[in-house]
């Protein structure tokens, strides 16, 4: 008789802790020593773990083999089972951040060393990596003899022609037409514009005289032989062209209508030649 047995089943069971439960199942707690309310449980466990009867012992070998096989299969299943995923180390937030920064820096350094970053970023990356002893090309390292097309606002304020200058030039110049436009364009682009230097009507002569009879011959002549005549006009116009030898009597109107509607070959060039004829 002890303290616990005095209270056995006479009082409400006390909360059972895990260690006591473990010792009860291990058989190290006698029923008399069990906590209140658990003496009968201890006896029940004793009975369950009682010594085997002779009949049970006769089947001991068979039972042991069966249990051993069950334990082995359970252990092998457990060892190969992906129930638990053990990480080699815990990835904390700081470690994740550090890994991300390192990866970003590595990628940026790689791009910077290849000179593949945009100009401003390449400039900054070059300066920053130079501080840690890494030499990467600057933004203009691969430019060769090409001038830098990037400018700054200070360049614009000092060198660029102002809007008022352009307006004054446009209102005071004696030039007219293409020459006036070319002069304004050159002034606005600081001499870079080549407007008026190509395709000047004054520099060339129309390949055909106007007025002409139009038609296939005129289109061929106006295009410098590039027009293949009626078939090309038909093909270009999707069959809508009425130009050709059959409509030669219609003359210039037919060629113009054909070129104005669909055809851009032959007769189109002819009309352009007429338009630029001074």
């Amino acid at each position: 008789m002890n303290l616990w047995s005095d209270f056995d089943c006479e009082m409400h069971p006390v909360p059972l802790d895990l260690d006591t439960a473990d010792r009860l199942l291990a058989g190290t707690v006698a029923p008399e020593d069990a906590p209140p309310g658990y003496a009968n449980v201890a006896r029940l466990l004793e009975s369950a773990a009682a010594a085997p009867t002779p009949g049970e012992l006769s089947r001991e070998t068979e039972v042991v083999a069966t249990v051993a096989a069950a334990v082995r299969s359970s252990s092998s299943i457990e060892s190969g089972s992906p129930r638990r995923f053990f990480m080699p180390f815990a990835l904390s937030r700081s470690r994740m951040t550090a890994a991300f920064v390192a990866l970003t820096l590595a990628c940026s350094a790689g791009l910077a060393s290849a000179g593949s970053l945009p100009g401003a970023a390449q400039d900054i990356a070059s300066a920053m990596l130079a501080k840690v002893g890494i030499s990467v090309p600057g933004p203009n390292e691969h430019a060769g003899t090409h001038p830098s097309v990037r400018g700054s606002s200070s360049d614009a304020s000092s060198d660029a022609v102002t809007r008022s200058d352009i307006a004054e030039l446009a209102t005071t110049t004696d030039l007219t037409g293409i020459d006036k436009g070319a002069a304004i364009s050159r002034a606005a682009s600081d001499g870079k514009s080549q407007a008026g230097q190509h395709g000047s009507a004054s520099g060339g002569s129309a390949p055909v005289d106007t007025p002409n009879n139009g038609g296939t011959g005129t289109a061929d002549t106006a295009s410098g032989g590039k027009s293949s005549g009626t078939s090309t006009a038909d093909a270009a116009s999707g069959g809508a062209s009425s130009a050709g030898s059959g409509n030669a009597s219609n003359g210039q109107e037919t060629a113009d209508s054909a070129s104005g509607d669909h055809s851009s070959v032959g007769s189109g060039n002819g009309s352009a030649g007429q338009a630029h004829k001074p």
Partner: protein
Amino acid sequence: MLNSLERSGASDPVDPEAQALTASETEAALAHIASLPPDQAEVVLLRVVAGLDAEEVAAIVGKKAGAVRVLQHRALKRLSGRLARERRKVDVTE
């Protein structure tokens, strides 16, 4: 069952009658354990009948040792409650 459990401490293992009584008590105890929820019954049987410890049982049933301890703790609480109810029934009938 409860009376037999209470008598089991005085049974003589050499006496055939006592052996028969013990066998019936064992069967009754196993029946009680088998009436538990399957996972709890499995843990208790492996602990008591097979004589394994919590870690070995955990390896067999595929749980952590802590989970096994929780299961066996719940099983003992449930057994205690059932035995207490049975005792109250016996007391009322007597």
